[in-house]
């Protein structure tokens, strides 16, 4: 992780950083020096040039009193920006104090303060500011105070939320044990820990304050004549917009530019102060050495097989071009066969399965020499399969995923999700699909399926959700079920039930199954044949019985097998494991 200083320099060097720096410098320059340089010229009343359009002397023309619009806008920067910054300063300090207060005083009183803050947050800042300006009267100072006060609840809640999350940590408890007074802990230990987000938020808040201040002045509740800020100028300009539009438009543009400057500042501060969390595609997947030849089955595709794939490749974009994740995998699945794919995480087994299903999406890239499912050729590419195959695949190919907690839509009833393939691909009406779905739910042993149909996923247990997923797949009498770690997220007893359910479906309906798992014990108990994947390729293709009998050829398979404890395993020795960082890739070209 980069240090804050380095990140600052990096961000400042980016186009966004340069833009922010220039904008801030310009705003600062105008706020500090514009009144001194142009103050008198801006007040100069040119009676010969009242309400004139652009001219060489007056770039944007003159207002109703013959004063230069551009110069007045530049001079008004100081009041507009300084008032906004003052309001932000007061508001931020007040917000931090009131946000920390509940933690310092604690107990019932502290909770009441939080309730007070929350009620304050409910009211929009501008309404609060208008209400305060009733008390404080109409002047620049009053408007500043009103905006600052209106800012306090919002900033207070922000501070409170941040501080409360730090408050529970160990070093706070340690400080308490050492007898440090609570208020001291709050300021010396909590505040420094939440400083960065508070700063970022302050920059954005300042932009809001600038706009609010202009708003109040525009309403006539802020700066009063003869002083002027952008809001006041806008107010005067709007009444004469038909005569001299520039009198309203120029200060208007100034407000937008100044507002954007604070947004940019907040953005840059945010980037510089928070550690980079940019998700990197290539870091999500383990990359392998680019491959030469295909691995696994060879020869032309097997037209009798339910699934046949030749030279499937998956790649991910990275800084140094494309990185290969799966390189040239080929395999066949016969009708009614149960095939297992094992391998450690990152070996490409799930990617293989998802790309066959056409569910691998950008930015990953998929390609294959040829592929065929249930008599229909598949063009394996990124994104989903051709929509002309929708009905064929929707009926014939079912998928079950690892995490039943996330694979059902929480916003829809489970039953309607189970019934969906019927409506989509089998030409069923809604009510026919409903009774078919209830039948399927019963067949996967979900009791009281009538009632369960209308329930939502959060009312189901993990095992029941996985059964519902399987029931969804069974709507169309599938020729093949692709199961991606279907039992990994489940309890051991539930695991066994799901596996025996899959076995029963295979036996009774002759449905072929491809089961992806990292658990070789699960795979050998269910499958007749096992594909072992390592480093993005198939390193071994072996019958389950042979595997159990210890006839594995590839060293990785042997190592994987050795990790499975049996009844004969010596319990006095530590559990066997594949050593961290062990590399079998130099032997991975051994044909399987």
């Amino acid at each position, binding site marked *: 992780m980069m240090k804050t200083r380095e990140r600052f320099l990096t961000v400042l060097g980016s186009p966004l950083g340069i833009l922010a720096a220039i904008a801030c410098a310009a705003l600062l320059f105008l706020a500090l020096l514009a009144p001194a340089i142009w103050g008198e010229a801006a007040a100069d009343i040119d009676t010969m040039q009242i309400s004139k359009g652009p001219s060489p002397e007056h770039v944007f023309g003159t207002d109703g009193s013959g004063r230069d619009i551009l110069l007045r806008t530049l001079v008004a920067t100081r009041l507009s920006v300084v008032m906004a910054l003052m309001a932000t300063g007061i508001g931020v300090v007040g917000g931090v104090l009131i946000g920390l207060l509940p933690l310092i005083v604690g107990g019932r009183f502290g909770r009441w303060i939080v*309730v007070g803050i929350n*009620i304050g947050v*409910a*009211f*929009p800042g*501008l*309404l609060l500011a*208008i*209400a305060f300006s*009733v*008390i*404080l009267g*109409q002047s620049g100072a009053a408007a500043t105070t009103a905006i600052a006060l209106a800012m306090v609840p919002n900033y207070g809640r922000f501070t409170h939320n941040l501080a409360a999350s730090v408050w529970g940590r160990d070093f706070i408890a340690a400080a308490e044990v050492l007898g440090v007074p609570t208020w001291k802990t709050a300021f010396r230990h909590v505040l420094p820990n939440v400083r960065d987000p508070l700063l970022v938020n302050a920059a954005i808040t300042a*932009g809001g304050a600038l*706009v609010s201040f*202009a*708003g109040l002045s*525009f*309403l*006539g*509740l802020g700066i009063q004549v003869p002083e002027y800020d952008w809001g006041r100028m*806008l107010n005067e*300009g*709007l009444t004469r*917009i*038909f005569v001299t*539009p520039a009198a*309203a*438009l120029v200060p*208007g543009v100034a407000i*937008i530019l100044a*507002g*954007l400057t604070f*947004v940019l500042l907040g953005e840059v501060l945010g980037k510089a102060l928070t550690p980079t969390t940019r998700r990197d*595609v290539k870091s999500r997947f383990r990359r392998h050495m680019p491959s030469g030849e295909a691995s696994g089955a060879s020869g032309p595709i097997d037209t009798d097989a339910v699934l046949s794939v030749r030279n499937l490749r998956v790649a991910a974009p990275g800084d140094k071009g494309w990185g290969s994740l799966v390189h040239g995998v080929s395999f066949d699945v016969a009708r009614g066969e149960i095939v297992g794919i094992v391998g450690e995480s990152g070996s490409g087994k799930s990617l293989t399965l998802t790309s066959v*299903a056409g*569910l691998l*999406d*950008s*930015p990953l890239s998929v390609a294959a020499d040829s592929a065929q499912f249930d008599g229909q050729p598949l063009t394996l590419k990124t994104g989903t399969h051709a*929509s002309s195959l*929708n*009905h064929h*695949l*929707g009926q014939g*190919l*079912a*998928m079950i995923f690892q995490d039943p907690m*996330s*694979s*059902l*839509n*929480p*916003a*829809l009833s489970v039953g309607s999700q189970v019934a969906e393939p019927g409506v*989509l691909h089998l030409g069923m009406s809604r009510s026919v699909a409903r009774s078919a779905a209830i039948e399927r739910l019963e067949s996967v042993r979900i009791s009281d399926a009538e009632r369960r149909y209308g329930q939502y996923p*959060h*009312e*189901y247990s993990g095992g029941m959700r996985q059964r519902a*997923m399987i029931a969804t797949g069974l709507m169309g009498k599938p020729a093949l079920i692709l199961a991606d770690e279907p039992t990994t997220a489940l309890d051991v007893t539930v695991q066994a039930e799901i596996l025996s359910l899959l076995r029963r479906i295979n036996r009774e309906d002759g449905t072929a199954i491809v089961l992806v798992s990292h658990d070789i014990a699960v795979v050998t108990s269910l499958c007749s044949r096992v594909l072992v994947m390592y480093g993005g390729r198939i390193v071994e293709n072996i019958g389950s019985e042979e595997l159990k009998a210890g006839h594995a050829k590839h060293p990785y398979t042997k190592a994987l097998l050795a990790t499975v404890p049996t009844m004969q395993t010596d319990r006095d020795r530590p559990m066997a494991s594949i050593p961290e960082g062990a590399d079998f890739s130099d032997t991975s070209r051994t044909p399987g």
Partner: protein
Amino acid sequence: MLATTTVLASTQGWWTHPWLIYLIRRSAYFIASLVLLVTLSFLLVQLIPGDPARVSAGEMASPEVVEARRVELGLDRPLIIQYLSFWRGLFTADLGVSYNSRLPVIDVILARAPATLELALAAVALVLVIAVPLGLAFGALTRGERRRGVEAGFTAVSAILAVIPEFLAGVLLVYAFAVSSQLLPVAGRSGLSSYILPVIALSLGPSAALTRIVRAETLTVLEQGYIRTARSKRMGPIRLYGRHVLPNLLTSTFTIGGLLLGGMIAGTVLVENVFAWPGLGTTIVDSIQDKDYPLVQAIIIFYGAVVLLINLVVDVLLILLDPRTALDKS
């Protein structure tokens, strides 16, 4: 735990149902906020530095006029009596008389509120109609890091639009459509065409902000496992986005939408003053400048109550949309 709630409710009776408990708590909070709002509005006049009667009557007023104003404001009575009669006034819809127009305050509010509420509701409708489909579409277009150019353009344009405050948007729109091209009326409330500019001015910023949020939420939803499940069922994009993505966006959209709506109620004050819209926003600014305190207090209570009511409605809507949020809250 969640799976057992239905069972619990049936064994212990409906009064222990978590929804009902939440609803009662939420309503209590609403009433407490309302009481606080009324109390603070009452104190508004008391807190004015110096002599509120003098401020209200004006610097030049004679002592007799000031005393008369003091009696009219009720400031000669003990504070607690003033407070109680303030409440009685609210319950009997007798909010006093506006100094300026000499009309009963309640009549002014009833005459002016519809124009403001129409403006706000039309703007909210426009925000939702624009932000939800647009956010969904941009989310779909830029999912999985595709179309980086579109994403950068969208981010920049929506950030700029979100920064433009409603009163500025109003001024710019007036210039573009009423001054330069004279297509639409510049101010006032007469006929449907007079609504166009104020409503757009009010909804431009919130639309940009909400579109950004809907897009971000769409991207999050598209990464979820259940979307992969839906795609494995091979359906068209309309069904995928309409049935499987959209319902999962609504919770966050309505939460943020509620906050935006509160801000838009405040925004009407500014927009009304740009377009000389005959609503409460122009009235409150005039009455603050005229020190017409009974009217100011009543309008502030009205605005505050509308905002609190919106928050309440949004929270209740959220439970109906997604029962789990309510259960988490209570």
